[in-house]
């Protein structure tokens, strides 16, 4: 796969970010 670092950086941040936001929401909801 060409340009691998850019693809990993893009997908890693975006998909990882979605996962982190889901955890963040879940924790904030539980703390209410």
């Amino acid at each position, binding site marked *: *796969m*060409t*340009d*691998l670092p*850019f*693809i990993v*950086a*893009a*997908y890693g*941040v*975006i*998909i990882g*970010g*979605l996962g982190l*936001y*889901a955890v963040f*929401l*879940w924790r*904030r*909801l539980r703390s*209410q």
Partner: protein
Amino acid sequence: MKTRVLGFVAAFAVAAAVITALFIVPADLNQGDAQRIMYVHVASAWLAYLSFGVTAIGGIGWLWRRDLRFDHVALAGAEIGVMFTAFAIWGGMMWARPVWGVFWQWEDPRLTTTALLLALYIGYLLFRRLTDDPERRATRAAIVGIIAAIDIPIVHFSVEWWRGLHQTPTIGSPDRVLNPAAPMAFVGTLLAMLAAFTLTWMYFMIRRYQLARMQAEREQAARLERLEAAATRAGGLPQ
């Protein structure tokens, strides 16, 4: 329970779409594998538009009906929209470097207006913290949210109105969806990613709205408690 099911379906859909985009659909002939970033970049940009559109509609709803639930929807849209705008910019930068040779170019109207969009809605979220009064906060935020939404069509049509590095839409109109300037495998994968991200967006919106309502209830309870304490100090609540 239904929201939890939606969350699982969304997570599965995102996983399937990402596997398809990275390993199943072929690489672009000219851009190579870097073009695979397009799927998450475009899906993020679409949800940024949708989120901020919802924020503007929520603001109009509040001004019209004076129901704080509209303000909670507006807040959810703004917070989630900021996240997706940041994702769209990040994905765009990672795609731009191998294809354009630069991460960013301020002279490009699409890039600059998108950066402005991000700044506007971060400002919207910060602006909401200026007052504790929920009604005053909702009114001020509604006005800011409606004015900021003017940038959404400017971002979208910037590639048509001005010249820059950013390409014009490949499937930006219904006739182009049916007759796109890209192979059907690419278009199908993009539509799958759009659907998966939209499901995820729906899940986030519901959860963020629920959180906003809970926070508002706690704020209200704390306010009543303070009022009661003040009234007790002053000799009891008036009968």
